[in-house]
């Protein structure tokens, strides 16, 4: 009984949030890895792209709410999501046309593209702050819980409660659907195959008649969709603040690199590795250990390995260890 209580407490406070956070990171990191694979640079503007897409969703959500449209128990933001994605796609295609295309034609060094993406990052960050302001925005509505801790206790009779937040449920389901769709697209459709061919060997793909402009445009479309979805899910789950999205850059890059840049399945695993380590290292184990350990070993302190403020340090240390010991990523193929 105590053991089950321990598992329930752990699921409630650490497992579920970690799975949700991991899904959000994985979606973000998939965007980074798509850009890296096809356009061949590390996009510093990705966190702010997520912020921009989410901002579109938020504005449309507010508009829908003002019209009295709602989605029953689910957040209205899900209804607004497709429109937000369209806005983000339009914007990214515009940016590509105005900024990145020039350097692609020149076959510029990836480092230059990285610096260019810093400029785009400034612009996106400025735009978001200009339009929404730098503060916290709330846009979630609908019911907060699929199952509250009290319902669970009454239903099962355990002394520990397990609450399932709506945002966690939505995040996990959406992430599964999006990833399945993306993998199907990349592996089964003609366009997806041509994109993978382009990513593996650009010259060979061009010789086989793959249209580079089309591949690049589709990449941006997918990236916009992934970034908007990831950003909206993160915003629904936690809160929306432009600066937080900028800071997500580090765990997202860490997920992408840990998983092996350019490998979608590895990147998803990377997202979960980072999310689980961040949450488990900064989780206060007192309650769980209190259930498992015998009476005389019960901990007095919180048994928190690191304070939550150091969660970035965790993703970073994992990143560094992977870079030094296995530079192709935990799940990457050994390509030199």
């Amino acid at each position, binding site marked *: 009984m105590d053991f089950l209580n321990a598992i329930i407490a752990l699921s409630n406070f650490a497992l579920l949030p970690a799975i949700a956070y991991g899904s959000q990171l994985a979606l973000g990191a998939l965007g980074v890895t798509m850009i890296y694979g096809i356009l061949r640079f*590390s996009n510093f503007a990705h966190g702010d792209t997520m912020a921009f897409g989410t901002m579109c969703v938020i504005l449309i959500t507010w508009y829908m709410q003002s019209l009295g449209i709602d989605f029953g128990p689910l957040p209205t933001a899900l209804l607004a999501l497709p429109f937000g994605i369209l806005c983000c796609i339009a914007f990214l295609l515009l940016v590509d046309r105005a900024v990145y295309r020039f350097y692609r034609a020149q076959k510029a060094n990836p480092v230059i593209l990285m610096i260019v993406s*810093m400029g785009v990052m*400034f612009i996106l960050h*400025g735009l978001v*702050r*200009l339009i929404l302001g*730098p503060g916290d925005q709330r846009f979630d509505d609908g019911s907060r819980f699929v199952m509250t801790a009290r319902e669970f206790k009454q239903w099962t009779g355990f002394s520990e409660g397990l609450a399932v937040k709506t945002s966690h449920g939505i995040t996990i389901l959406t992430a599964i659907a999006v990833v399945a769709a993306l993998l199907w697209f990349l592996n089964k459709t003609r366009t997806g195959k041509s994109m993978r061919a382009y990513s593996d060997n650009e010259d060979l793909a061009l010789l086989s008649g793959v249209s580079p402009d089309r591949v690049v445009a589709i990449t941006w479309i997918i990236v916009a969709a992934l970034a908007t979805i990831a950003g909206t899910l993160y915003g629904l789950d936690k809160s929306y603040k432009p600066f937080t999205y900028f800071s997500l850059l*580090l765990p997202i890059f860490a997920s992408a690199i840990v998983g092996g840049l350019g490998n979608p399945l590895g990147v998803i695993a990377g997202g979960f590795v980072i999310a689980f380590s961040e949450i488990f290292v900064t989780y206060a184990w007192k309650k769980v250990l209190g259930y498992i350990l015998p009476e005389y070993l019960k901990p007095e302190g919180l048994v928190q390995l690191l304070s939550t403020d150091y969660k970035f340090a965790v993703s970073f240390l994992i990143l560094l260890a992977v870079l030094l010991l296995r530079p192709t990523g935990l799940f990457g193929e050994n390509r030199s």
Partner: protein
Amino acid sequence: MKDRIRTILLFALAAALIVGTGFLQSWNTALIILNMGLISAVMSLGVNMQWGYAGLFNVGILGFVALGGLATVLIAMPPTTAAWSAGGARVIAGLVCGAVVVAAVIAVFRHMKRSKWRALIASVLLVGGFFLYRGIFDPGVEAVEAVNPAISGYLGGFGLPVLLAWPAGGLLAAGAAWIIGKSALGLRSDYLAIATLGIAEIILAIIKNEDWLARGVKNVIGIPRPVPYEIDLQNTPYFAEKAISLGMDPVTTSSLFVKLSYSLLFSIVLVFIVVLSQLSLNSPWGRMMRAIRDNETAASAMGKDITARHLQIFILGSAVCGIAGAMMTTLDSQLTPTSYQPLRFTFLIWVMVIVGGSGSNLGAVLGGFLIWFLWVQVEPAGLWLIRIITSPLAEDNALRAHLIENAAHMRLLTMGLILILMLRLSPKGLIPEK
């Protein structure tokens, strides 16, 4: 010759902008811009060393600047004797213990062959060492932070003259750069970028959370100054008389005098670093650096030790950023960790280097002044622009009020546009490398 005239004209433009601010707004504002411009120029010189000379992509500048600020607190603040006797020894012992554990793990990795045993011993050392470190360290920290938390609650500094903090800030940043360089250099440029981004976050997290060190987010205020206080000047009869005899108000004069003294100190540092950088860039060492940057394989074939040179330049550049950080904290007389924003202290410095001209020291200095000037002045200009754009809307229009309220963020937009336009139209910068 043409290049030289161009350089002189550009610097004259920067000077004119600052002097113009003096005439049009106030001399106080002009001097504030000048002082931060001098500091920005030093930071941008540091980044230019790493990126311009050696092609190292460092986006962790914020961390080194913050370390410089930390050095200022550690050097100039008086020691908190009560805190030292309460838990100082324990804290130090904890830190030493932590360092010994890390060194032991590294030694195990160095001296043992790759095997299961090595991994096992290293993990046991690491986990055991971590708990030992927390066991020694935590009670010490608790004791230190309990000492008068409202005004101190930290160990304090050495109570030395604040000017010593500038070289100390450089040394501290150099030390951190050594550790980082040892582990992260040699990575591909985009990986190095991510790694440095993460390190800056960690350094900042440490400064924010380790209250025993520099009070964390409670800020350290009232750091001693290398120049006199305004109020003392006003109370000095000689100074007040002199000001009045020049036809100026003693209060304004004292404030200008203090700012000018800072400008003088900062200028000395800037000129010193510029001269050294120019000399080294034109020396055989500088040529070797550029050779490595332009073609690592060829340089390596010529027998140059690329890793060692990269480490050297990474440390040098970071040290310069640390010095700038210490200068800035000295100017502010306070350390406020929450004010260290990556956009302001990492990416803005990059804009300065790119706009000035990668690889050119004078360009970095010019970029520092020009971009800092814009960063300050775009804010009112953006407000003015938004007022004009939204003028067709009614005075109490919600959209108009909202945009005006957020107009300050126009500066981020402007910086992004400048960076992108510069890279497109003149990728070598205003003063290109020769």
